[in-house]
């Protein structure tokens, strides 16, 4: 076994997840290559943003990391322990270290259970009977109060329901929270509350996060590191500040340039990609992005590029023709300079 550093909370090595499609016996068997060979590490105290468009495999990766899905190939290690082969009961100790927050709090909370019951469940799964004080403590961590314990999910607003989802994930005192689109179902004003809550919890409890989101602005607000996914692979990763200010992969560049900026009349260089994301059933040969890339050449179609350092350091991109490390002009003055 390779030496594992202590501060690695989560490590994925060459992880793949293929979903086989129900094909008739006389047809060639097909599968959706949702995650197609990913190495991914989360260290203690870190918030890693995982961004990508629909179908990029980011949610599948989140479910592989939390062992809600079994990988087709590769290895999943949590806090240095190989958990790829663990099943059922033997996974329970692992679940204490890593928990998940889902996108839609309406769908992820049982409407027939009171908040108290919802919060008790994770304790019971670990064989613990929580005291009322413990439940109240959980609620106060997410900005709710004791009076909410007896209420049911429908009595709460969307933002409050997401707080309950977060409280449930915090019950077993995990080290790592995997949040799959935690704020995308919320209104802007409420979204900011939940993002600030996640930041506070990180400071108070020393949590680490994997934040899966399609909204690049949301991720920029909270991420220390960023990984960009396209068609089941990570095409670029590195320190968030660096990836946002000088993206190396053409896809990252196009993605960032497409995000509208709240500056009326701002003149921005926008790379509008043509076409759609190819099907993950039959991804393009070589580089998965080459069919939409403005830099693609013959070599891109032959072998898939691997993540290689750009400009030294931690910042890596899987591209034969990475952009030079130059900042992208995104817009004019920041918000703070605008108001009196």
């Amino acid at each position, binding site marked *: 076994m390779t030496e594992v550093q202590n501060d690695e909370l989560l490590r994925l090595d060459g992880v793949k997840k293929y979903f086989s499609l129900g094909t008739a016996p006389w047809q060639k068997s097909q599968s959706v290559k949702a995650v197609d060979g990913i190495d991914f590490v989360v260290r203690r105290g870190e918030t890693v943003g995982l961004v990508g468009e629909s179908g990029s495999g980011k949610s599948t990766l989140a479910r592989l990391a939390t062992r809600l899905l079994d990988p087709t190939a590769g290895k999943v290690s949590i806090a240095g322990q190989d958990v790829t082969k663990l099943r059922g009961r033997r996974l329970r100790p692992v679940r204490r270290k890593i928990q998940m927050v889902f996108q839609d709090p309406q769908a992820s909370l049982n409407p027939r259970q009171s908040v108290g019951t919802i919060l008790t469940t994770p304790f019971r799964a670990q064989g613990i009977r929580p005291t009322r004080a413990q439940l109240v403590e959980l609620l106060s961590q997410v900005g709710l109060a004791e009076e909410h314990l007896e209420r049911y999910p429908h009595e709460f607003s969307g933002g409050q329901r997401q707080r309950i989802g977060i409280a449930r994930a915090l019950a077993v005192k995990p080290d790592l929270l995997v949040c799959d689109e935690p704020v995308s179902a919320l*209104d802007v*004003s409420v979204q900011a509350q939940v993002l600030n809550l996640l930041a506070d919890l990180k400071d108070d409890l020393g949590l680490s996060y994997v934040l899966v989101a399609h909204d690049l602005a949301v991720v920029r*607000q909270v991420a220390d590191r960023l990984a960009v996914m396209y068609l089941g692979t990570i095409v670029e990763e590195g320190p968030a500040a660096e990836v946002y200010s000088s993206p190396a992969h053409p896809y990252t560049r196009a993605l*960032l340039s497409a995000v509208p900026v709240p500056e009326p009349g701002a003149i921005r260089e926008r790379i509008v990609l043509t076409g759609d994301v190819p099907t993950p059933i039959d991804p393009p040969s070589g580089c998965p992005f080459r069919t939409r890339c403005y830099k693609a050449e013959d070599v891109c179609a032959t072998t898939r590029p691997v993540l290689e350092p750009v400009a030294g350091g931690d910042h890596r991109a899987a591209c034969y023709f990475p952009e030079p490390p130059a900042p992208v002009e995104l817009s004019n003055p*920041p918000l703070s300079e605008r108001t009196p």
Partner: protein
Amino acid sequence: MAERPVLEVHDLHVTFRTEGGLVPAVAGIDFSVAPGKTLAIVGESGSGKSVSSAAVMGLLPSNADVKGEVLLDGRELVGLPGDELRKIRGNDIALVFQDALSALNPYYSVGWQVAEAYRLHHDVSKKEAFQRAVRMLDLVGIPAAAQRAKDYPHEFSGGMRQRVVIAMALVNDPKVLIADEPTTALDVTVQAQIMRLLEDVQTEFGTALVLISHDLGVVAEVADDVLVMYAGRAAERGSVKDLFYRAAHPYSLGLLGAMPRVDVPPRHRLTTIPGSPPSPGSVKTGCPFQPRCAYTERVGERCITERPELTPRPGEGNHEAACHLGRRPEVAP
């Protein structure tokens, strides 16, 4: 000088009769949009922005009472009988929904559906209508439109389906296009394509666009004027620059501060608006935003007892805000 508006809405009220009583979803809003211009209506869930657009289109269920004036080229639409309205709807004024998949019929080819929209308003043969449909599909950027027109909605990607819906909305050269969150369900790279398409259409045909959106980034990019709605009322309105650079209502400022931005390094914390948007009609007196407002203490009782009216504010012309705080609020109270 501004062109004469093609769509004018005056003092629009929408009240739903429900088992729980009357629910005032929209309580008196005014807006107008001129040919080739874009008005964005911004607001959170329950602010009444979608109900307003449905009221303009006459698409509300029968338990909705609509009062006020909706003038399309000077012609009153409120109270028009169904068959008259059907002649206008889809012809002079068209709507693009958020969810393209539910706006299309899965049993018919997209070309047939676009052609049907044309045949409803024009006395042409099926063949001619289909040819028109193919031209529209080509115009909205569907590759190999002549062949793709024979395909069914499920054979298209989300972005392509939204293009089909836009083609259907534009097939009769409407004067006004209402787009209700047209890109919310789409990925950001596809969103950029669709917003560019809408802009091209406006330049080419002079269509007036009413864009309903919660995404201030999209609004900043395409809108000429903005109406900020809160709890069924106008909180603020003005030019897009008035809103983004001279916001006068604490709610507008709160929205701007709460929005994470992709183009600047993160600030330590986002400013938040405490609480969540009220349900329609729950605030009976005073300012509907008062329970969440950070400035209410400076104004005092008035915020609770007296409903603020839209009053003029400094700006590019018709900048107005409904707030008792006369001067502009500072950032981050």
